[in-house]
């Protein structure tokens, strides 16, 4: 069942990715260029291959200079992940909201937490961070260090 689903999913995005790996028996990871994202996500969404379960942001650290955006599509036990490697400086992906309208909350989270720009996203306002959060500070990047808590006020 899971193998069949993965094979079907793979067929939908045939020729639209750079490389593929199978990290676990129920998963396929496809590395893609940002320019291939809408074609891949669109093909999976149009065929109703599962649903976009989450978008994960990853920071591979300052030395590597790389971020990564992972788009996880889940179909029963099968998971296809579109991995989009991005530079830490000026990371831009096209928005998938045109294809998957409900992705808007995931994209807002990715933008504010990692500083990835989702080009063409309908709503780029903050979702979780406070209104007075400083611009250009992305808390889930590795170079963002958690500030020590302020001392408890005297009773």
């Amino acid at each position, binding site marked *: 069942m899971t193998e069949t689903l993965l094979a079907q999913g793979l067929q939908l995005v045939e020729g639209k990715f750079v490389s593929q790996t199978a990290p*676990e028996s129920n998963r396929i990871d496809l590395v893609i260029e940002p320019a291939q994202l809408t074609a891949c996500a669109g093909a999976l969404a149009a065929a109703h291959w599962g*649903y976009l*379960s989450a978008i994960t942001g990853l920071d591979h650290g300052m030395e590597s200079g790389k971020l990564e955006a992972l788009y996880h599509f889940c179909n*029963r036990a099968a998971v296809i*992940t579109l991995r989009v490697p991005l530079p830490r400086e000026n990371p831009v992906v096209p928005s998938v909201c045109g294809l998957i309208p409900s992705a808007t*909350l995931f994209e807002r989270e990715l933008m504010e937490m990692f500083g990835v720009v989702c080009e063409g996203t309908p*709503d780029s*306002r903050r979702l979780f961070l406070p209104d007075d959060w400083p611009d250009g500070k992305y*808390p889930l990047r590795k170079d963002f260090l*958690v500030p020590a808590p302020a001392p408890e006020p005297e009773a």
Partner: protein
Amino acid sequence: MTSVSKEKFVIPIGPQHPALKEPAHFEFTVDGETVTAASVRFGYVHRGIEKGAENRNWTQAMYLLERICGICSHAHSTVYALGVEKLAGVPAPPRAQGIRQILLELERLHSHMLWVGVAAHEAGFETLFMYSWRDRETVMDILESFSGNRVNYSANLLGGVKYDLGPAQADSIRRGLDFLEERLHYYMKIVTTDESFQRRTRGVGTMTTNEAETLGAIGPVARASNVARDLRVDAPYLLYDQFPVTIVLASEGDLQARFVVRIQELFESVRMIRNLLSGLPEGELTARFPRKIPAGETIARIEAPRGGLFYFIKSDGGENPARVKVRTPSLRNFMSVLVGSVGHQLADVPMILSGIDPCFSCNDRMITVRRRA
């Protein structure tokens, strides 16, 4: 006469939420009484848990993640433990898995009963609210006698569980389940026969199968729209392949269907817990677990009370997680409800919102809270 204004009329709702006593801010754009667009702003109970997990070791992170949600705390710690155990290649012994599964279903019982109460309150049926919350205490007492806590049971360890389940405890769970089952029949009778209740639920917030599928709805919301998504069935974990549940579906897709599906699911949970209590495998409760986890990435998913709970866990070989991504079912379902509320009457919005059983603490989790200086 002046010309008709083309300006949009936006009704802000919250941060005090119209249905639940938890904070979120919604903006509904309306044309007359009809909703034409909807957006949301979270963050009012944001605690920075994803970032916090990176600054703790693998064990400490589990206790932190368990505190994402007070209702489905065991779901969070279990999905995390399953993921880390997969990365380490050290599964929990069968008896520990069985105990985890019993707790997960007890948690589903009290979570759904809590929701029945809240939703009944929204529908103006205060008696049902009181009844279901009173009855829910039965589950809370069971959980307390098992772990010492009503919430955040801390039952999981990496590689096993802390508490065993003895015959006396099993008997008290059975007695509790007998009582609850009787009450569930009563709830079912009310939601399917009471005239005034049905007027608040039937045909309200309807999501067709096609909509639920394309909007990516999950959990009881999806199943009430006849979308067969249940990870306990689709991708069995723990002992769900030996002690399975039958997937509960309804085709109407309205609020009433969401009531029926949730209550029906509890009958399944009760049946499954009874089977598991009598068939719980013998053996160890824990496996030896390493302090450092080999480098790798994994995805762990379980069916929490509100739907599929998604964890992406990355290790770079150290003592701390390199990344823990949490996607809670409420966030996924919020998207479906926001898109789905368009075209509905504003007056139905509170019921539509509470129909997904939203959990705000679950959504809000990943930045640092800054204390006032």
